[in-house]
């Protein structure tokens, strides 16, 4: 039997938002998390999640915009499967305790 990949609290929060709300920018994730995610660490977490294949990103730059481009993130199929597996495991564990 293959183990479920591990998900940290921040990763669960990000995947939850990306799966249910769709594509989002880092700052939107920070604002939606009501203090759980910080501006300084959200992109590091997202980068690590991209390494694991949970999320993917693309640059968003409009034609007449100055400054560095924005980056939008969305959950991959693998990320969504891991999240749902984690949710099911959590539900089963909580059900087992009750």
């Amino acid at each position, binding site marked *: 039997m293959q183990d479920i990949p591990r998900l940290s609290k921040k990763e669960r929060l990000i995947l939850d938002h990306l799966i249910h709300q769709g594509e989002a920018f880092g700052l939107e994730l920070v604002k939606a998390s009501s203090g759980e995610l910080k501006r300084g660490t959200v992109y590091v977490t997202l980068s690590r999640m991209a390494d694991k294949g949970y999320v993917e990103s693309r640059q968003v730059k409009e034609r007449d915009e100055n400054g560095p481009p924005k*980056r939008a993130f969305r959950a991959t199929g693998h990320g969504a499967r891991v999240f749902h597996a984690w949710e099911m495991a959590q539900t089963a564990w909580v059900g087992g305790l009750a």
Partner: protein
Amino acid sequence: MPSVGWRIAAFGGVIVSGLIPALYTTTLWAYFPYKFARLLSSYPDFLSVYRLGALCLGSAGLGGFCIGLAFLVINSQARSLNKPPGNLLAAASEFFSRRVRTEVLEPTLRDMLDEHIEALAEFHATGRNLYLWKARIVVARGYWSFGTVVIAQTPLSFAKWILKLWKAV
């Protein structure tokens, strides 16, 4: 708008020429009122003239310091309105790999710029200084976030570099 070199020179000049005499004068005024009373009521001698000179110099320094500080504050206001922040951070991000730069550092900078512009737009719309301070806080928070990102990312980048080197060997 003065260049960075001129700003540093002006700030250094203010500190050296103003702050030290200003502190000296403040100390004299605060701790030696009795001696000044004696100085004014007695015949001037060499030491008294020296002290009077020090007092004048210190007062001039205090004035210069206040003017310099006001100049820096006004100038910083003008800068916050006219020039986008983060140039220094953008230059610092060049030290990292392309991937870290594009996926981690640039979005952090971009968020800071967006929030800064948003706060300045509110300032222009309402004319309330509160939003100007908000813009400054956003910049300070942006620098803090950037530092956090660098601290969080550097060990990971270093570990990956070591692993790459190990595999190559």
